[in-house]
């Protein structure tokens, strides 16, 4: 089957064509009929699973918010850690600079 016809078949497999439209398509693409029929059968088979009820685990949201809370708390700790580190660094610099001999005052001219 030529690649340029693939997209046509995908849509044809999705929809039930009326007799006239199907006949027109078959005469235009006789080589694609078997693929279209197979694709349609797969589409119909899988569409049955649309009815499946998929149940969210009951504690899903509780666990999600616990994780988010832990993330936020960790970020806060890191954030505070950086802020604390910055403060300590500034205090050390201040202390270091304070013990350096003061620069001699240049006499005013």
């Amino acid at each position, binding site marked *: 089957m030529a*690649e340029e016809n*693939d*997209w046509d*078949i*995908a*849509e*044809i*497999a*999705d*929809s*039930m*064509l009326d*007799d006239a439209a*199907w006949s027109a398509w078959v005469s235009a693409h006789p080589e694609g009929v078997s*693929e*279209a*029929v*197979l*694709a*349609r*059968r*797969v*589409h*119909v*088979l*899988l*569409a*049955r*699973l*649309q*009815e*499946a*009820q*998929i149940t*969210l*685990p009951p504690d*899903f*949201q509780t*666990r*999600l*918010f616990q*994780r*988010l809370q832990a*993330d*936020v708390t960790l970020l806060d700790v890191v954030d505070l850690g950086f802020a604390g580190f910055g403060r300590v660094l500034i205090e050390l610099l201040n202390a270091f600079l304070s013990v350096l001999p003061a620069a001699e005052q240049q006499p005013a001219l």
Partner: protein
Amino acid sequence: MESLQPEELVRRCQQTLPHDPRAFELLVNTYQARVYATAYRMMGNTDDADDIAQEVFIRVYHGIKKISEPAALTSWIYQITTNLCLDALAKRKRRSQRSVSTLHTDDSDTDGDLMPIDRQSPTPEEAALRRELYRCIAATLSNLSPIERAVIVLRDIENRSYQEIAEGLTMGLSAIKMRIHRARLAFGEIFVRTCPGAWRATETRDSSATPR
């Protein structure tokens, strides 16, 4: 439960996070069932679906302040979900290629409970046949490539539009249609080979499905 348009949800989350989580709770309530269902259908088991759905909302939480198109919230969330599933499926595929060089013929990666709840109280024989059919579907899905599985799940099971799938996977429309068609053919070929009896059983039931 209050229901808001995506733009409004995004606006409220951007204004209130991280101090007030109520808007984000509303967002989670709005999308959690759909995100989990998509992840479950793509991954085929509850553990992976749960991990992925949790990760989706964590990414949404951390990314929502930067979202540039609030109206595209829904497609953004589905895009994250699809991409996380594709990554996880690719990792799973690599693991299985390392450990087993042959095709899966069972549904060991799946819970096998993708099947609809039977509301018509079939006979035990009918129920067994249906169980076998859905086991075959799950096993066949697990043998497709990640992208084949993704497009076929999104189109045929989730009934998403071609446009939506193309946007989610950042591919062109005609490329997506081609992928979907090829994925259906691949599914059909594997299903016929691995479950010929179940395939024949669908023939009579789905005979009206011939596109005509």
